[in-house]
Each structure stands twice: as C-alpha cells, then as structure tokens.
C-alpha cells in the first residue's frame, strides 16, 4: 500500500526519460509524489510543505532539468535535504553540577519509564556514572514499582517509594538524595500526560522549576502521526525540551514524526529506542531515518547504480 519514493518517482521519470528534456512542470509532478510519500510516512503537513519548497528551489538551482538522470538527481536532493533537516544526533548533556538532573516527559505509554532505565544503564556502564532513578508517576497503577523493578534488573539505584508524596516533592527528595549520597546523575521519570492537559503540563513545569534539569527529553513514539506537531509544540512551549528520544524504532513505522518533531522544535533527536529490552538504545543517525522515511534502504547506492 505504501510505496516508497523510488517506486513513485521511478514511474514518472521512466515516462519522462523517453521524452528528453524536463520542464519545470515535470519537476512539479515529481514533487507531488514526494509530498504524498512524505505524508504516507507521517511527516506532518506543514513540514512537508516546507520541505517540498526547499527541494524545489534546490532542484531548479542544481539544473536537474538538464540532467540525464533527473529521477536520481531529484531523489538525491530529497535525501540530502532530509538528512540535513533531521540534523545530527547529539549526546546526552551532562554539563552541570552533580547530581545532574535529567527529566523525561511525554504522552501516556510513549516509553518514558523504559527509556529512563535504558539511559541509566548506559550512563552506568559506558560512562561509569553513579545514577539514581526516581519515578514521579503517582497516577498510573504500579508505575513506581515498574521503575523499581527496572532498577533491580539493571543494578541502578531507585529512590525509595514514599506513598502520598506529590511529583514535585518526590523530585526534590530525589535531588537531595542525589546530592547527599554522591550521585552523578538523577533521572526523573514522570507520568504520561496529554500535551493539552493544562493542569498536568503545569505540574511538570513545576518539577522543572524545582530541579533545573540539564536535559529535558521528550519521549515520543516513532509511530506518531500528524499529532506530532501538537505534541512537540506543546511540550516545547510549556516545559521546554532539550532533545527528543524516539521509541519503537524497532517497529516498521516509516517514522515521519522524527522529522516533524525535529523541525518544529529545532531540538536534536538524541537517542532511539530499539526494543523492549533494557539495552536496546541507540544513537541517532540521520541517514538511516531518512532512508526509512523515504521507504528505501540505502539511497546513496541506489543513486550510484543509476
């Protein structure tokens, strides 16, 4: 059902090749296919429009019209532009006084608790950091216990659960404990919340104010559709995110939300969740996600074959 871009453009350019030179109209036809391909990959419409305009400018500027392999040229421009817009991956920022607070936010079920444990394990094993995890989720049944169990599985300390405390109080206790017991990093896992839920968005903003996190990561599902715009905008405006962690990249979603969120917030995609297991966390590589959004594996070799 969802043909990749190569298939879509291939048909158009096969027809055109036989006719010789391309017109600007031909490029526009190609760009209409680019638009559909991106929408089917769940890239948000405003981002698609901006993208198509950029590609058009470049395509005309780079004289695709007179090229002998215009299809490949357009694909290459699309791909390169996509990689550029996705930006480079960045490491977790730990440049702050210890204990460095890292705040995890996002919609319900996006993968915050699992990702909290994944990052903690990575910091512990790879960077030899002493990490404390705290669950500020007083809403979801057994949420605090979930983090505690993950702590046991990973050998990362968790803040003792005190029933009845509100999220801000738990966050303060976590930072105090972190300071007193000499932790390098304090990971703050929060309850899932809708970005249009004013009350809960204010609650997480209060946690931010109380802890001054060095990183506030928006944890978002790679399967997210057009709503990525609203989610990213609201979390960025109301909480102020420093990066994005995309989960369920081990699925078969085309992952257009990555481009939408990156473009709308201007914040880097820092990490990818690649599975349910606690070590399934990877760095972000824009070219891989670009190929995936376009529905083609290795674009560069494809272009070279032409």
């Amino acid at each position, binding site marked *: *059902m*969802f043909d990749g871009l190569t298939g879509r453009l291939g048909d158009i350019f096969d027809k055109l090749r036989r006719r010789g030179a391309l017109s600007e109209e031909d490029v526009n036809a190609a760009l209409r296919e680019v*638009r*559909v391909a991106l*929408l*089917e*990959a*769940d890239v*948000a*419409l405003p981002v698609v429009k901006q993208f198509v305009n950029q590609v058009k400018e470049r395509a005309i500027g780079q004289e695709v019209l007179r090229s002998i392999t215009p299809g490949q040229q357009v694909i290459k421009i699309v791909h390169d532009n996509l990689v550029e817009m996705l930006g480079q991956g960045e490491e977790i920022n730990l440049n702050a006084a210890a204990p460095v607070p890292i705040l995890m936010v996002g*919609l*319900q*079920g*996006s*993968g915050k608790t699992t990702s909290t444990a994944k990052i903690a394990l990575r910091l512990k094993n790879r960077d030899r950091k002493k990490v404390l995890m705290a669950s500020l989720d007083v*809403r*979801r*049944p*057994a*949420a605090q*216990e*979930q*983090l*505690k*169990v*993950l702590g046991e*599985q990973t050998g990362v300390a968790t803040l003792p659960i005190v029933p009845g405390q509100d999220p801000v109080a738990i966050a303060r206790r976590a930072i105090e404990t972190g300071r007193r017991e000499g932790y390098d990093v304090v990971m703050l896992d929060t309850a899932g919340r*809708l*970005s*249009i839920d004013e009350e809960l968005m204010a609650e997480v903003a209060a946690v931010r104010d109380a802890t001054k996190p060095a990183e506030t990561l928006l944890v978002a*599902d790679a*399967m*997210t*559709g*057009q*709503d990525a*715009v*609203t*989610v990213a905008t*609201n979390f960025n405006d109301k909480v102020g995110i420093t990066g994005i962690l995309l989960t*369920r990249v*081990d*699925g*078969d*979603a*085309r992952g*257009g*939300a990555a481009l939408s969120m990156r473009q709308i917030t201007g914040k880097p995609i820092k990490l990818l969740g690649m599975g*349910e297991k606690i070590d399934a966390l990877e760095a972000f590589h824009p070219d891989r996600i670009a190929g995936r959004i376009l529905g083609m594996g290795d674009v560069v070799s494809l272009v070279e074959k032409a």
Partner: protein
Amino acid sequence: SKSSSKLTEGISGIFTKRKLDDEALEELEELLITADLGPTTAAKVTAELARTRFGKEVSPEEVKATLAAEVAKIVGPVAKPLEIDAALKPHVILVVGVNGTGKTTTIGKLARQFRAEGKTVMLAAGDTFRAAAVSQLKIWGERTGCPVIARDTGADAAGLAFDALEEARRQSVDILLIDTAGRLQNKAGLMDELRKIVRVIKKVDESAPHTTLLTLDATTGQNAHNQVEVFRDMVNVSGLILTKLDGSARGGVLVSLAERFKLPVHAIGIGEGVYDLRPFDADQFAKSLMGLPSQ
C-alpha cells in the same frame, strides 16, 4: 480540543463567502490530512464533496456537515457494540496490541462495565514480560472487584492463559479477560508467542477466544494499517478499540482502516480512569473529526 478547533478555524477560513473551487478543495484535503486520514482517503472524501458541490457557493457549516456525513458513511458500518454470549461460561476476551496502546487499562475499564451489568469477571495477567505488568493488572482487579489469575514475571504466558481459562470454567464465570504483553507486529517471534497463547486456549475450549480485541492508539499515524493487518492475520482480531481519544489526536486513520479492513470498532478510550470507555459512535466521531459540536 485543540486540533479539532484548528480544523474548524481552517474550514471556516476557507469557505467564508467562497465558491468551492480547486484551491478550496485542496485546502480542505489538507485539513483532513492533518487529522491523519492519510493522503489517499483525504483525496477521496474531498472528491465526493466536489462531485456534489463544485462551483457552488457553500457555507462552512454546509461543508463541514457534508464531510462529516461522508466520514460517517465510511465508519458507520463498523460501529458495533461488543457482544457477550451469555451462554458461554466464560466468554473469553483476548486483548492484544502494540506496546503502550492501552491494553491493560482497557481491560480494567471493560471489567468495570461488565461488573456493572451484573456479570462475573475474571482477569488473567498474560503479560508475564514487562516490569510490574502483573501488579498493574492486579490494581485494576482490586478497583473493579475482579479476581486476577497471575504468575511471576518471566513465566510462560500461554501456560498462564491455560490455567486461567480452566479456573474460569471451574468457577463458571461469565467473562474472562486475558491481558497480553505489548508487541510490535513486525516481530515474528513475539507474534508466534501470541499464536501459541491462542492455540493453548483452544485446547481448553475449541471456540475460544470468542473475542480478540486489538487496541489502537489514536496518536498513531499510518502504521496503524500494518498493525491491523498483521494482528488480524496472526490472531484473527475480531474488533478494535481506539484509545486516547481524549488527546489532541483525532484518530483519523480509523477512516481508512474502516474502509480497508471493515473490522468492528467496539469502543473508544477517553481517559485513564475506570469510567473512561465509551461505545464507538460513528456520527460523533465524524463530527469531532470535523470540529463540529458532537452532541
């Protein structure tokens, strides 16, 4: 909500004292795309509008109503309540779906609803993988007054389902709700495990599971197509529940899903609480997609 009001503003903006021309139609199509209908379905729905109204002066209300009617026509046939066979002791409901889509919460909500109807309900903690998944379901069991059959994390899920069904039969309960671990549809191994659960259930009762529900998160975009297709093929999904419709996402992908798979949509989730489950109402869904007051 925010996105539907955006949609309303958009449509009103397009059609104030305007003819329905190509440009207007394109803008309209784009507004549907932003509700996750997908480019193909959005084009189809607007084409239908063009067929009847092209070139005419149309008011925003008229356009919205026509589009909502068009959407309702597509999703209407799949709006079917979940039916329980009272003769079965138990009627077995297996709940499946991708990670974090709302399986466990939906089970809690369904359990409350069945209990309110005077039925006896048992829950089976078939997610033996995720940390504290068993505790989570146990809390839902307490909230709704339902016994929970569980084993330790790491135990065999199919074995647990087998035990639970035998126990439910012995106690002659009306409904057994079986929770399962979340899994992505492209993981062959995990999908095989799910099939094994079904096979083992059938050893106790050949006709079970009598209902297999797939939970879909309204925030999901076009990947919902793959989810429905694979879960349907693997475990014979009999109906869908669309969760998290209280958020800013409108769940528009359901329109193309209804067209393509024709699977019943039984209910929608509209919050995290025990009462936050509603029957799926096609007109209301279509209206809220268009930003029209739904009642």
